[in-house]
């Protein structure tokens, strides 16, 4: 053991202070683990919820302290050592130690890597001008909110969940909003064109300009962004820009430590990595999913919470299998989109309700007759029933799914 770590009791070290890490710590204590726990995070704050950042928190509807996953006092009461504003720099697997960027050493008996993900940055000329924002942290939101003035011109780069949620909130605050999306439709990565076109219709009805099939080629301005250039003659005036073009899992620590990493840190259904004393949970993992029969890397709270629980069990000698139907949600205007399952590989999309009028319908994704996913817009019954049916690998009749006179509870023949 090196000098700096002398006297430190060897216990559980959690690298990452997000949803997965917080869940693991809470589950360790409620599960009866009484040994030392140290949580290392590179932000200033105790673990907080990220989903509201692009929704109610950005809108100013909930205060900062309501974001905390557990109250700040919890960690002291639970005897959890918090090490914030600190980046874990390396893992020394031979001596079972985590080394931080500022030279401290944290010996571990078991290590949980819950490093999450970071925003994908846009790499075009002018990328470093003032006024170009991303949205991942509380600090990011505070930066965006400082620009929220009625009549201000916001250009959102990326028509995914984050971009569209920001657009909805900004519009409600009276800003002029333009969304630029490279694909030929919004949310192209995650939903069927029926759902994309519905969201484009609603955003346009709310006054947002949605441009698809455009790729940003650069930002212009004198120190501060003033224009967004699309390289095809289109130039958009901007008082500020929010870029939401995806996230990248934080796997460098695991790669450098020689752990098996392949599109995320490779873990089993109990969150075990290729090192018996190291576990990983949340956005940064690539894990098996028995419902779909292949590996997944997911960017979701549900995934972080459930893997956090499994990691706590595994690090204390238990075994809690993580094998669930993934689910996600997005709030835009008065639309609650709830997604259960993953639609990739679907052979048929079945629509229930009318996407062309109103604001409530569902799209079921079938693969050879079997339900694999649903997108439900203001349709809780479709969402809740589908979560059960996807897990059961139910085969469903498209005609019955379309027939709204048949209640969701009776949808299985």
């Amino acid at each position, binding site marked *: 053991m090196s000098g700096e770590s002398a006297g430190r009791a060897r216990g559980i070290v959690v690298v990452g202070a997000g949803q997965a890490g917080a869940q693991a710590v*809470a589950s360790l*204590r*409620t599960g009866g683990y009484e040994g030392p726990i140290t949580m290392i995070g590179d932000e200033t704050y105790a673990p907080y*919820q990220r*989903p*509201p950042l692009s*929704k109610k928190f950005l809108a100013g509807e909930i205060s900062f302290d*309501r974001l*905390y*996953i*557990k*109250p700040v006092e*919890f960690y002291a009461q*639970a005897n959890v050592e918090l090490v914030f504003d600190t980046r874990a720099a390396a893992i020394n697997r031979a001596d079972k130690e985590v080394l931080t960027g500022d030279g401290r050493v944290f010996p571990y008996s078991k290590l949980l890597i819950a490093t999450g993900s970071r925003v994908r940055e846009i790499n075009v000329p002018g990328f470093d001008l003032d006024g170009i924002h991303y949205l991942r942290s509380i600090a990011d939101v505070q930066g965006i909110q400082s620009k929220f003035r009625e009549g201000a011109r916001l250009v959102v780069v990326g028509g995914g969940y984050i971009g569209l949620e920001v657009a909805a909130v900004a519009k409600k605050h009276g800003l002029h909003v333009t969304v630029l999306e490279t694909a030929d439709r919004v949310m192209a990565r995650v939903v069927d064109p029926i759902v994309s076109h519905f969201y484009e219709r609603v955003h346009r009805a709310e006054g947002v300009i949605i441009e698809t099939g455009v790729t940003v080629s650069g930002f212009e301005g004198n120190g501060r962004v003033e224009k967004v250039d699309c390289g095809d003659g289109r130039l958009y005036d901007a008082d500020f820009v929010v870029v939401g073009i995806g996230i990248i899992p934080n796997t460098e620590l695991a790669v450098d430590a020689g752990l098996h990493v392949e599109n995320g840190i490779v873990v089993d259904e109990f969150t075990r990595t290729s090192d018996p004393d190291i576990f990983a949970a949340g956005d940064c993992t690539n894990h098996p999913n028995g419902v779909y029969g292949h590996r997944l890397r997911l960017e979701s*709270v*549900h995934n972080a*919470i459930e893997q956090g629980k499994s990691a706590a069990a595994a690090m204390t000698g238990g075994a809690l299998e993580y094998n669930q139907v993934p*689910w996600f*949600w997005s*709030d835009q205007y008065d639309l*609650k989109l*709830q997604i259960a399952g993953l639609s990739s590989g679907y052979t048929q999309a079945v629509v229930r309700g009318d996407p062309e009028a109103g604001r409530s319908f569902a799209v079921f994704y079938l693969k050879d007759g079997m339900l694999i996913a649903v997108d439900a817009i*203001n349709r*809780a*019954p479709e969402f*809740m*029933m589908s979560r*059960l049916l996807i897990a059961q690998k139910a085969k469903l009749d498209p005609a019955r799914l379309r027939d709204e006179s048949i209640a*969701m*509870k009776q949808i299985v023949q």
Partner: protein
Amino acid sequence: MTKIIYVEHNGTEHEVDVANGLTVMEGAVKNMIPGIDADCGGACACATCMVFVPAEWEAKIPPKEDMEITMLDFCEHTQENSRLSCQIPVTDALEGMRVEMPESQH
């Protein structure tokens, strides 16, 4: 602050003071009371924060909106007095309210 009593399915009681303006769900989660998962953090998106509210308190809390009604309709342990605790703001009127938790939230 308003006193809320949370009763686990096994009968264990937790009496805590919850700041007005928070929800009954937040009062449980922030006080480490087991039995309320609240995966979505209060967006009425997951239905993992169900509680049973005794009839005498029903008039003192806001009525269920459509979303909550339909979410509850699909939960395994739903009873007539089920509520999603993320949809119940804590006010002075709830002083001493006892809420019971289901066997599980899934």
